[in-house]
C-alpha cells in the first residue's frame, strides 16, 4: 500500500495533462473553464494571500458543526428506529416525506429565520447530514448478528450498556461509512449554501470569482474543495482504522 501511493495519481495526472493540452491547442473562451496551469497559479496566489485559508476555516466550522449536530442526531435516531420497531413504523411516513426535501428549496426561509452567518449554514448542514447517518445506522441495526442481541438479552444488559457494548461496536463499521458519506455531504451543502446565499467561506469565494469573471480562480476554489474533502476523508479513514483497531485488521487479513 505504502509503495503504491503514486498509483492514485496516475489517472488524475493523465486527465490533467489532457486538459492542459486541449486548452492550449484549442484555446477556450468559456467563462467556466481554464487551463490547469492557470488554475494552479490562481490556487497558489489565493493560498498565499490567505483569503482561501480564511474561507476554508469558515466553511469547515459550519460543515464540522453541522456534521456533528446532524450526525449525532442521525445516529441517535437511527439507533432508536433500528432497535424500537414501533417508533420506526410510527415515524415512517413523516421521515420519508421530510427526508427528500432539498435544503436549497427552503433556503429563503432559512435565511429569514436565521439571517446570514454560521447559524443558518450549520442548521442546513445538520439537516442534510441527519438522513444519511440515520438511514445507514438503521440498516446497520438490522444487520447485527441476531445471536449477539440474544447475548445482550441473556446478560440483561441495561439499554445503555446494550447500545454501548453490543449495538454500537457491531454497527460501528457501517456507522463510520455513514459519517464518511455525511462528511462529504456536509462540505457539499455548506459550499452550496454559501454559493446560494451565505456570504461566507469557500462557496462565497466561488461566487465572487464566478461573478468577477475569473474562471481560473473559481476552478481553483473547486480544486481546493476537492483537496479539502479528500484530506477530510483521509483523516476519517485513519480514524476508522484506529477505532476499529486490531479486530478489524484481523478480519480483513483472513
Amino acid at each position, binding site marked *: 500500500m505504502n509503495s503504491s501511493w503514486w498509483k492514485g495519481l496516475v489517472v488524475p495526472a493523465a486527465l490533467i495533462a489532457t486538459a492542459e493540452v486541449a486548452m492550449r491547442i484549442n484555446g477556450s473562451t468559456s467563462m467556466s473553464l481554464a487551463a490547469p496551469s492557470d488554475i494552479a497559479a490562481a490556487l497558489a496566489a489565493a493560498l498565499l494571500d490567505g483569503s482561501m485559508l480564511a474561507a476554508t476555516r469558515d466553511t469547515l466550522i459550519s460543515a464540522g458543526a453541522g456534521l456533528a449536530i446532524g450526525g449525532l442526531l442521525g445516529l441517535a435516531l437511527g439507533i432508536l428506529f433500528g432497535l424500537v420497531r414501533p417508533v420506526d413504523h410510527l415515524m415512517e411516513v413523516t421521515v420519508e416525506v421530510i427526508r427528500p426535501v432539498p435544503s436549497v428549496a427552503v433556503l429563503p426561509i432559512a435565511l429569514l429565520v436565521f439571517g446570514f452567518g454560521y447559524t443558518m449554514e450549520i442548521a442546513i448542514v445538520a439537516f442534510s447530514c441527519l438522513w444519511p447517518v440515520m438511514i445507514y445506522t438503521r440498516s446497520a441495526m438490522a444487520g447485527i*448478528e441476531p*445471536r449477539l442481541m440474544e447475548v445482550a*438479552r441473556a*446478560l*440483561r444488559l441495561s439499554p445503555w450498556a446494550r447500545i454501548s*457494548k453490543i449495538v454500537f461496536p457491531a454497527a460501528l463499521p457501517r456507522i463510520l461509512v455513514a459519517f464518511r458519506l455525511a462528511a462529504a455531504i456536509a462540505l457539499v451543502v455548506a459550499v452550496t449554501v454559501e454559493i446560494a446565499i451565505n456570504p461566507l467561506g469557500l462557496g462565497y469565494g466561488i461566487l465572487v470569482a464566478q461573478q468577477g469573471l475569473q474562471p481560473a480562480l473559481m476552478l481553483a476554489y473547486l480544486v481546493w474543495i476537492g483537496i479539502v474533502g479528500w484530506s477530510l476523508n483521509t483523516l476519517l479513514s485513519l480514524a476508522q482504522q484506529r477505532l476499529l483497531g486490531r479486530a478489524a485488521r484481523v478480519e480483513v487479513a483472513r
Partner: protein
Amino acid sequence: MMQTQLQQGGSAPVISFDRVTLAFGDRTVINELSLDVAGGQIVCIIGPSGCGKTTALRMAGGLIRPNGGSVRLLGETLTAPRRDVAIVFQDYGKALLPWRTAAANVSLALEAAGVPRSERPARIRLLLAKVGLTGHEDKYPTEMSGGMQQRIQIARCLAQEPAVLLMDEPFGALDAMTRQGLQDEMLSIVAETGTTVFFVTHDLEEAVYLGDRVIGLLANPGRIGIDLSVDLPRPRNQLETREMPEFLRLRRQLFDFIEKAEG
C-alpha cells in the same frame, strides 16, 4: 413411548415446562412438552438432529416464548431472559463479540453484573484458567480455534455466576481430554454452588456421565421419548464411573432409544 415422568422429591422445580407448544410458522416444533427440573440437578437432553433441543433450551432461557403452555423459572413465568440464567449457545462463533478479545468477552458478563472494574482482571484470569485458556487473554475470537472460542463462551457464562446454566452442546468442538477436563470442572462448580443445569448434548456417554437425569426427545414434533434417572455415585470419575455396569446399561438404553428414534 416410555414416558416415565419423575417427580424429584423435596426441592421445588427450578425450571418447569407446562404443556409447552411451539411452532415456527405452521410447523409445530415442540408439542405439549411438560418437564420439571429440580434445583441443583443436571438434566441432559439428547435427541436426533433437528428434534427441538435447542428450541427447548431457548425457551428455558426466555429467548423465545411458547405458543401454548408456559415455561416457569423459579416459580415465575418467563417472559424475558434473566441474568441469573446463563446460556451457552450452540453456534459459539456467532455468540462472541468479534471486536473484543477473549478477556474482554468474558468481562462483558462482569460488566453486566456491575462488578467493579478493579476486581475484573483477577476474576477473568481465574475464569480463563478454568477453561484452559491462560495465555490467550489478548486474542480476538477470529484468532482462535473453534474449541477455544467455545471455551471463551463457557467462561463468560461462568462469570455470570448463574443459578441456572443452559448449555447447548458446549463441548461439541473439544477434543476428548479437554472435554473431560471441562466436564469435571463443571461438575465441581455445580457441586459447590448448587447450580441447576440444562445440558443439551449429542454425546450419550457425556449425558450419562454428567446427568442426574437424561431426557431423550423425539422429533416431529419434539416431545419426550425417554426420561431416565441416573443413579451413579458422585463425585464421578472419568475412569471408574464410565466402567460401572449401571453406566454401560444406561448408555445402551439411550443408544437403543436414539436408534429407534431415528429409524
